[in-house]
């Protein structure tokens, strides 16, 4: 599989299929990142498309020696943060409950569903900066170096944010952990 940066180079040389491949590679991870970050499916779909358009518009300026993954997640994080700041606060328990009611996941039992709701609520309770770090590391599997590039912070800050997020989540999910 060609590296992302290789695909970017090919696209800049006029190969449209390379961009298609990049979109196919990132559409699901990006969508899920924004969805976990904002807890709104419609917003996530809208933002994911906006991000790819932004990527297309600014690809000429992308330094192909840098990490494309970090770059695209940087765009995604900025867009998601701006979007949350522009709108009414969406991360509240009521909305999450509503989201969970309308978007049933593939749960095999009620306990799993309840656990997912609890995790979502706990994620929602995290401050935005900590939430971004946690999701990028935990769900999107970015390295700490990539996260540092994506959110524009020193590595130490990223790690301390991660520790804070884990501590907070642990506290919030204590009850469920006990059940486990």
């Amino acid at each position, binding site marked *: 599989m060609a590296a992302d940066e290789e695909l970017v180079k090919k696209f800049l040389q006029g190969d*449209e299929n390379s*961009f*298609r491949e990049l*979109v*196919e590679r990132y*559409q*699901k991870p990006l*969508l*899920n990142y924004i*969805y*976990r970050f904002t807890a709104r*499916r419609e917003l*996530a*779909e809208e933002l*994911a*498309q906006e991000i*790819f*358009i932004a990527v*297309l*518009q600014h690809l000429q300026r992308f330094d192909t020696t840098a990490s494309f993954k970090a770059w695209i997640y940087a765009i995604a994080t900025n867009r998601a943060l701006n979007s949350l700041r522009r709108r009414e606060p969406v991360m509240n328990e009521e909305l999450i409950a509503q989201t969970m009611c309308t*978007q049933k*996941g*593939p*749960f095999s039992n009620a306990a*799993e569903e309840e*656990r*997912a709701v609890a*995790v*979502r609520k706990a994620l929602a309770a995290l401050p935005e900066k900590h939430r971004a770090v946690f999701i990028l*590391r*935990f*769900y999107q599997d970015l390295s*700490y170096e990539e996260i540092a590039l994506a959110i524009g912070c020193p590595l130490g800050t990223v*790690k301390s944010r*991660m*520790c804070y997020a*884990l*501590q907070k*989540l*642990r506290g919030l*999910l204590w009850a*469920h*952990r006990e059940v*486990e």
Partner: protein
Amino acid sequence: MDCKEVQDKLDAYLLGALDKAETTQLEVHLAGCTQQCRQSLKDTMRTLDVWRALPGIEPRAAYAAPILASWKYSRKVFRLAVLTIFVLLVALLCLMWPLWGYRPQYPMYYFALLEKAILQYNIQHRTFPDNDLSHLLLSGKNGGPYLSPQIFKSNGKGEILDMWGMAYRYRYPGIHNRFMFDIYSCGKNRIDEQGAGDDITNWKK
């Protein structure tokens, strides 16, 4: 590092968020610790798996095709806009070109300069030049030159030449312009037709 501290940091350890020193301390502790900390490690791994099991969503449609289509369309519109601006600029330049070339092509330009110089002479001297325009190219006590020698050439007699190399004809007082002066150029055919034919005049023919 004691058991409590280790257990608090197990998730950060599993996610690689601890620094090197802390990681080493924790690993040393785990290697020598009783069952309790190892059990906590297993529990933490299980908890993280549970957190990770949060279901994701699938995109409702493939993004690539509409995004590329919209990008191509906007690029097309942009190119069209640039082309339109370019064409408009070229058209404007074409329209402006005759004005650019006005000075060398139009004898009336020289006429206007000449008339202005005569009027300036009149303001300075309270009279018009008497049938001899050579004063206009010279500097004197009361100012001058009134005409730029770079634009107007003169012959050996001091007569000011038109763009075809013939002397401007000047008459004061004017016959056609009463109380003022008449000037005319012999025109392209270089024949003095007393203001008729292709002669160019400062009066209406």
